[in-house]
């Protein structure tokens, strides 16, 4: 009886939601072409990036990217603050968890032999691909955020696969890289003020062949920041916080 009532409630809620969002999803209002045409004409000369998505989020709307990295920073701070005292309370619970062979550090707890072999071989390749996506974000599909996420998955692969803990999977080192890249991002953002192009403006004069270098710099910084933050969060969730 209680379950039937629950299902009726869910169905009613879904019907109301469907009535609300169906007109939005099915609308055939013509999409405006003004922004597309403007970007097609001016994006290359304004910012120097061939990839127009990069020229939007690192050129025209770079302030939005700063806010986005701040959200990421707040999120990782919250996650680490919530997770930081876990695992210290009960030692016997760790012994019965996934552990195949309890190694010295708790990161090793969820490993199997298959996972170990595959991820340790795959890690460096994925890391290289992540840096490729990060560095070529201005002329090909990709960019700082995408490359950063690939770098983060490579670090997680390495953390799951390597026998001993390296610098690359140490949360202290990763956290320092994150803080440093955020500092460099702020410095790069304010550097435009001294060259008469405003906050987050391109300090190199637009129209010259070097003006894409600012986009490349921002892509590298944002990629490092996103990659290290997500890697730190994943390693903390695997329980590797204490292992250093």
């Amino acid at each position, binding site marked *: 009886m209680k379950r039937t009532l*629950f299902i009726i409630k*869910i169905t009613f*809620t*879904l019907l109301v*939601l*469907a009535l609300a*969002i*169906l007109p939005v*999803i*099915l609308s055939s209002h013509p*999409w405006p*072409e003004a*922004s*597309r045409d403007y*970007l*097609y004409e001016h*994006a*290359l000369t304004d910012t120097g990036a*061939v*990839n*127009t*998505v990069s020229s*939007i*989020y690192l050129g025209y*709307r770079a302030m*939005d990217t700063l806010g*986005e990295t701040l*959200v*990421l920073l*707040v*999120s*990782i701070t*919250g*996650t680490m603050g*919530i*997770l930081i005292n*876990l695992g210290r*309370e009960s030692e016997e619970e760790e012994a019965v968890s996934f552990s195949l062979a309890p190694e010295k550090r708790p990161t090793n707890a969820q490993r199997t032999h298959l996972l170990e072999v595959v991820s340790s071989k795959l890690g460096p390749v994925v890391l290289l691909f992540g840096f490729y996506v990060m560095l070529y974000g201005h*002329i*090909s*599909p990709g*960019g700082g*955020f995408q490359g950063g*996420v690939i770098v983060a998955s490579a670090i997680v692969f390495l953390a799951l696969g390597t026998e001993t803990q390296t610098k690359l999977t140490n949360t202290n080192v990763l956290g320092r890289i994150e803080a440093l890249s955020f500092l460099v991002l702020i410095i790069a953002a304010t550097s435009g003020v001294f060259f008469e192009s405003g906050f987050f403006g391109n300090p190199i004069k637009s129209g010259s062949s070097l003006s894409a270098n600012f986009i490349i710099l921002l892509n590298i910084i944002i990629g490092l920041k*996103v990659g290290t933050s*997500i890697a730190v*969060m994943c390693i903390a*969730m695997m329980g590797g916080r204490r292992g250093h």
Partner: protein
Amino acid sequence: MVIERILIFLLALIGFTAIVGAKNIIKKVFGLNILNAAVVLLYILEGSRIGDQAPILGEGITNMVDPVPQALMLTAIVIGVCVTALALALAVRLYKATGSLEIDTISERLRSEH
């Protein structure tokens, strides 16, 4: 053109059902992710209505899609990852505190404690 929209609509409904109806916290987080994916797909679909080429300038690019929704959805994806991470961290904490991920069991145990 309509079939994609109906699929996106179904995806949004699936995500919302998981958020409202599922009893497990992890499944609720999955539902949040599915709803996020539906919104991202809807924006990309809207932006691709006025063109059919990737928004990367170069030789032969004359009819590219609108890059503005793609740049917006980049933000939405990153924020979605942040929200997922925080929600999962809270779920881990709740599991350590009460020993369960089902919301009925959690509220029962919390009530019996006080």
